[in-house]
């Protein structure tokens, strides 16, 4: 039963007030894309026991989608941030690197 702070309204939202949206920072591949690219976009998901970037919606709240960076092993939440970015904010990446030396967001994409 996670608790995540919605970056839009600032509420500490109970997991039962949220709906999960799976992996964050996917790039959409539409008409004209290769089968491989489309498969990766639609089906292939990371499932790490460790650092993960996720999409959540504050459904029983302000209704906004947001992103969360957290460690599925330690349950640490490095931060929540706008869903309208293509890269996590640097301060969150820095916070991850503090507990996961050598963490490289780009390399994981």
């Amino acid at each position, binding site marked *: 039963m996670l608790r995540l702070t919605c970056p839009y309204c600032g509420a500490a939202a109970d997991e039962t007030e949220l709906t999960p949206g799976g992996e964050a920072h996917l790039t959409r591949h539409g008409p004209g894309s290769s089968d491989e690219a489309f498969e990766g976009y639609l089906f292939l998901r990371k499932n790490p026991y460790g650092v993960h970037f996720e999409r959540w*919606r504050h459904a029983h709240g302000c209704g906004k*989608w947001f992103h969360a960076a957290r460690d599925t092993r330690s349950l640490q939440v490095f931060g929540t941030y706008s869903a309208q970015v293509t890269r996590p904010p640097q301060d969150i990446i820095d916070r991850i690197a503090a507990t996961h030396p050598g963490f490289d967001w780009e390399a994981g994409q």
Partner: protein
Amino acid sequence: MSFRLETGGRLIDRGAPRRFAFDGVECTGFAGDTLAAALLANDHMMVGRSFKYHRPRGLVASGVEEPNALVGLGIGGRFEPNQRATMTELFDGLVAESQNRFPSLAFDVGAVNARLARFLPAGFYYKTFLWPRAFWKHVYEPVIRQSAGLGQAPTETDPDAYEHFHAHVDLLVIGGGIAGLQAALSAAQSGAQVLLIEQTAHWGGRAPVDGVIVDGMPAGAWVAQTVAALQAMDNVHLRLRMQGTGVFDHGYVLAHERLTDHAPDAPGPRHRLWKIRAQQIVTATGAIERPLAFPGNDVPGVMLASAMRDYVVNWAVAPGRRTVVVTNNDDAYRTALALLDAGLEVPAILDARDAADGPLPQQARARGIPVRTGRAVVKVKGTTRVKGVGIGNAGGIGLATDTIACDAVAMSGGWSPVVHLWSHCGGKLTWDNTHAMFRPDPDRAPTGADGQPFVHVAGSANGALHATDCLDDAARAAVAAAAALGHQITAQPPRADAPAEAPMQPVWVMPGRASPAQRMKMFLDYQNDVKVSDVQLAAREGYESVEHTKRYTTLGMATDQGKLSNINGLAILADSLGAEIPQVGTTTFRPPYTPLTFGAIAGEARGDLFQPVRKTPMHDWHTEQGAVFEPVGQWRRPYAYPRKGESRAQAVQREVSNTRENVGLLDASTLGKLLVTGPDAAEFLDRVYTNMMSTLKPGRCRYGLMCSENGFLMDDGVVARLSEDSFLCHTTSGGAEHVHAHLEEWLQTEWWDLKVHVINLTEQFAQVAVVGPKARVLLDRLGGMDLSREALSFMGWVEGELAGIPARVYRISFSGELSFEVAVPAGQGRAFWDACLDAGADLGVAPYGTEALHIMRAEKGFIMIGDETDGTVIPQDLGLDWAVSKKKADFIGKRAQERVHMTDPDRWKLVGLETLDGSVLPDGAYAVDDGLNANGQCNTQGRVTSTYHSPTLGRGIAMGLVRHGPDRMGEVLNFMRTDGRTQPARIVSPVFYDPEGEKQNV
């Protein structure tokens, strides 16, 4: 025999007798008794039969770890099985019955299993009842279920109330012994807001029983003083009878409060499930004493030494007159001394250690108790009650050198910290060789959202078993928890004093070199009837993983969760495998720590509040008319309105005919209505619908399809363009929230550059479909709007007032008839509905339900989301290619529909089906094809998606998906029925009725 002592009993009130019944026999106890104490006072040592062998079993413990005294409590709707007598507070009129015996506790037919015990080892059921397969369901399982298992489930409705409560605290302290009290006090004094909970009805835990001195006063006095101090603080909340059930992610804790179990006539809910968010948690959950594994250690009268002390000191109950104490540590000597204090006999203390010279053994010797070191119990005499013990060498092969007559045995194999709550959320354990126990590893604590530990263990739960260490440890835990909350504890904690104790010595099998026959009588897990020999067998058969052994032998399963059995079982397994205990490791401790009731889990969600039922503004009218409802999502929609003497089927047929011949009313309020506005609204809708919406003119409507990114058809509905930059999108009845969320997701996470607002207006409007040849006449009578063919053409909408009510009228049809859907403010929906009924009385107006709606749409070949679609169907399968734009560069699902499988010409496609004899095809039936598939099943070539009896055509009609279906008109397929026979049906056009659309074009 067991009996009540003349004096003493710190928890009972001798002036307040309480009557109760056990197995139909009336008994008496006192206020303050547990059921277990009262049973002992009435000489009911034997309280049940064991799970598998039906061996007589007696009380072993005095708290939550009790494995045997599980009884059925209460009667009728309040009957509850598997309740621990040790946790049941006595009240006047309590009714309890023993379990797992037939026909009676004293004479039990199933006890024959005990004599067959050597044929029922671990894995017996797995190995024996494999074949023949058919026997499992009809022979083996019913017989095994009758003979095994715990109590019976109640059959009547539970009349009690239950509820939940959400609490948010700085610090939750679980456990109200001296460690928990001290931790709570220190933290509260530092400024933290504290919730302290205790599972029993009393504060103080073991310390008052064990004669501990705290801060220079008897523990009981210190506990009373500390509780009073805590109660006086407004940042502290205290709760008794509340069990810390489980610790979960991010400081989420479930706690089970029992409010009226001890006072059934009190008002209010019976149980309350607390859902707590704690920033920090201190678990001060104590320790549980371990049994010793000697032959016959399950004979009634063999009890944990600490439990025996509890019964004597707390409730003035003597489990026996002559008690032999057998131990591997100093703590059990307290029991011998307590028994002496109560005037009872202790003929011997058998200490497996070679020496016992600490203060407690010296006291025992000084008071004349024979202390025999290096000795062990090698045999227990008696079956339903201890009659004596055979004594031998602790390290020997089990020969009895002498025998002592006694009627009780107090055993102690050392202590195991209660690490369950620490472990639930990932806390790891470390092996403590000195005390032969697993205790929390402070370097591997459960971590919270900040990545820092959020559970701190205090006192004996942390392995600090001695009272002095216990309070010191509690102080340390309080400092750590307070620091994490930003508070500082400066006050020095009080000191606890108790006699020093010499180290214990692990004893896993007693005697050390016992024979195989003796090992078959050494019980590790009383509740699940697992013996030393079972674990050894499992090891021999290759179950090397502790998790596998647990499941194979059932050691520590079910409600026990390893409370009594865990360490002893692990030690035996480790020994059998020639490994060390830390290498073997421990099984996972899972919530709940102790069982909680289904009532507490459900809370208020029962009866009318089981789930939300969504009602339209006309719901009460439907109910008054005797409508039969069906669930559509959480909505309740009228299925049909049967009249007196009419069956449902007859009502449906009448409603269809009346609508086609006169005029029908449908409550369509449940249709989703999403307002989409903004300068980019048209562009947005072009991306989410498969068809082109930007070309729709204001004032006009268009049927649209929505697909998922997977390409599959998700929802459909009519889109009305309200103005250049606003659209009203209708969704299916169950789909409004889902589609709204879908639109928001794309707007917020992919196309956030679009200036678009989406607002769910579903419930702002009541919507009534006025359908049939006389629909226009009816609406004209209401007055206020020109709804002529010229003023409002098919697929148009207009706004105005009807019968004085603001209305928006859409001329759309899902039935093939002349049809108007009228949206009015929800608050005036009922008035509009009534006005339609009044105005149309002489026109034959009558409401129709969802089944008539379904039949009429099927007669027209219109698809229904959820019937023709199931999440694997694309619009092209349904002949809806016309609604999938070829011009648009992109829309949600377009790329997916280009995949090879989606463009496969062999995909099943929509057709109509009619049986040759006019009967109705079974719903979901498959059309068989030649040959068999890889699993030896018939190949299939299609299936029925909708099937009805059409009153309009007087025959069965159906729609289905068939391979190459549209190219096979006239062909006859065979559909498999549930009775194994096939039913032939011909492929026809899905439009059965008025294919030219003349009926609506008037």
